[in-house]
């Protein structure tokens, strides 16, 4: 199986979602899926460009689609990030349905020497490709290590399944593909009621009250169901739930510790790949206690450099009063 791939800015080396890319590459090889990166792709505009300029937002996306159409004659493009996936597939749908919009976008593309015929490239989410093209059976055949003993909260977020009009394959209200995938690998899957709720997207940068409320619901939901781990399909969801979990805890004076990994990382562990290859260990909420339940040892992060002890006062200084209990420190 061969597809073009749109990595998206979040999955680049040095970006927050790079472990997703690492683990995706590691699991697709044994599954026989080959990806060809679209040359010189650009940002999809996230949820920001369309809030400022409609024509520029569509033209930005169309540039990538035009370049994708030139990629080795491949007609299907994989997008691992849910937001990229929605932006690309949605723009293609609107350009297909609205000839006037497509004409205008092509006038803009023409200024850069490009042209895109709407409908040429179908964008698909990585999870869709794995469960529907590769199939659960092929995944099961690759698995050498059961995830039994691990309680997983499968988290889909929004843009993988909603709005359900651009070729999405799973239910917008109660998706199940990720549940099945994790069950195939032997994990115990929690019937997670928050599985399709919103992580808040960019709200951490706009309104803490709004953002932390949404993050809290998801993390608490998983904790209430005694999930050991949340498994996600999107770098934005991972960043919000993992990176901002500490800040959310401080905001609510809470103490949640629910690690958040990508479904590709869980697949890699089940395939017997080692944690470092899968980018495990880069998460902010420590996943080691959870992974130790299935016998996975993650090398501890490198010892943090301890600041060299600097005596606060020169030895020859006059004696200072010493608090009881601190004598040995003072010498």
């Amino acid at each position, binding site marked *: 199986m061969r597809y073009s791939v749109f990595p998206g*800015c*979040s999955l680049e*080396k*040095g*970006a*927050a979602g*790079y472990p997703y890319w690492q683990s995706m590459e590691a699991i697709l090889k044994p599954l026989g899926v080959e990806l060809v990166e679209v040359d*010189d792709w*650009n*940002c999809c*505009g*996230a*949820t*920001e*460009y369309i*809030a*400022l300029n*409609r*024509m*520029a937002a569509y*033209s*930005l996306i169309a*540039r990538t689609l035009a370049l994708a159409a030139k990629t080795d004659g491949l007609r299907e493009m994989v997008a691992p990030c849910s937001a990229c996936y929605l932006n690309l597939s949605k723009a293609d749908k*609107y350009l297909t349905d*609205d000839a006037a*919009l497509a004409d*205008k*976008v092509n*006038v*803009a593309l*023409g*200024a850069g020497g*490009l042209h895109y015929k709407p409908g040429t490239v179908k964008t698909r989410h990585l999870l869709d490709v794995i469960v529907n093209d590769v199939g659960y059976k092929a995944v099961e055949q690759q698995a050498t290590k059961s995830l039994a003993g691990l309680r997983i909260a499968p988290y889909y977020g*929004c843009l993988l399944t*909603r*709005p*359900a009009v651009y070729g999405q394959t799973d239910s*917008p*209200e109660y998706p199940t593909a990720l549940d099945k995938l994790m069950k195939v690998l032997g994990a115990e899957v929690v019937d997670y009621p928050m599985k399709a*709720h*919103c992580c*808040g997207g*960019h709200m951490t*940068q*706009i*309104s*803490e*009250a*709004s953002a932390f409320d*949404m993050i809290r619901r998801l993390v608490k939901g998983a904790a209430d169901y005694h999930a050991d781990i949340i498994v996600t399909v999107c770098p934005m969801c991972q960043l919000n739930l993992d*990176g*901002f979990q*500490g*800040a959310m805890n*401080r905001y609510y004076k809470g103490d949640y510790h629910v690690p958040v990994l990508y479904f590709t990382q869980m697949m890699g562990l089940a395939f017997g790949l080692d944690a470092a290859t899968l980018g495990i*260990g*880069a*998460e*902010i909420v420590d996943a080691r206690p959870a992974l130790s339940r299935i016998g996975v040892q993650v090398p501890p*992060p490198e010892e943090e450099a301890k600041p060299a002890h600097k005596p606060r006062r020169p030895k020859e200084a006059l004696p200072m009063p010493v608090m009881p209990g601190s004598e040995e420190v003072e010498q």
Partner: protein
Amino acid sequence: MQQVASNGTPKTFLDQVIAATPGNPHLEMCIQCGTCGGSCPSGPDMEHTPRDLFAMVRAGMKDQVLRSNTPWYCVSCYYCTVRCPQEIHVTDLMYTLKRMSVKSKLYDESIAPDFSKTFIFWVENNGRSFELGLMAQHMLRHNPFGVFKIADMGVGMVTKGRIGFTPKRIKGMDGLHAILAKAKEIEAEDDAKIMGGAA
């Protein structure tokens, strides 16, 4: 259907909002049931629920609509869109109202529009987004002390290699600049037609 004046300009604010939204958003079909607001994860932070806002659009309350914080608290989760019994493209309409509120300069709070602008600043200049630049620029402007609140996260992200220090730039920047400049020109022409030069 839209009401269009003889010069091609949509007659009412409702018509303008519909004309500025890609696809057919079905806004005129709203039956005021409130399913949108009831499905909204950030509804409590909105000054008007989407249902309220749509009633105001219909009533021609343009200034009040474009001053509302509602579109800026839309998190783009699309629950309203999939649940609306009238198949109204609620999320798309929120994006339209965001654009109109920025262009009309009626919305007083700057944090949400500025985030979009800063994000796009990096995209327009490099072709790709740049997380560190975006966060630094946005937080310096709007939440300088917020850096301390997420310091532990920041340190973790750096030591674990999840923050890059240099933006990535695409090869075809000249082409992208030309494409976006042309697109903005077309957008301005469209706006003039839709708003009759009013926005």
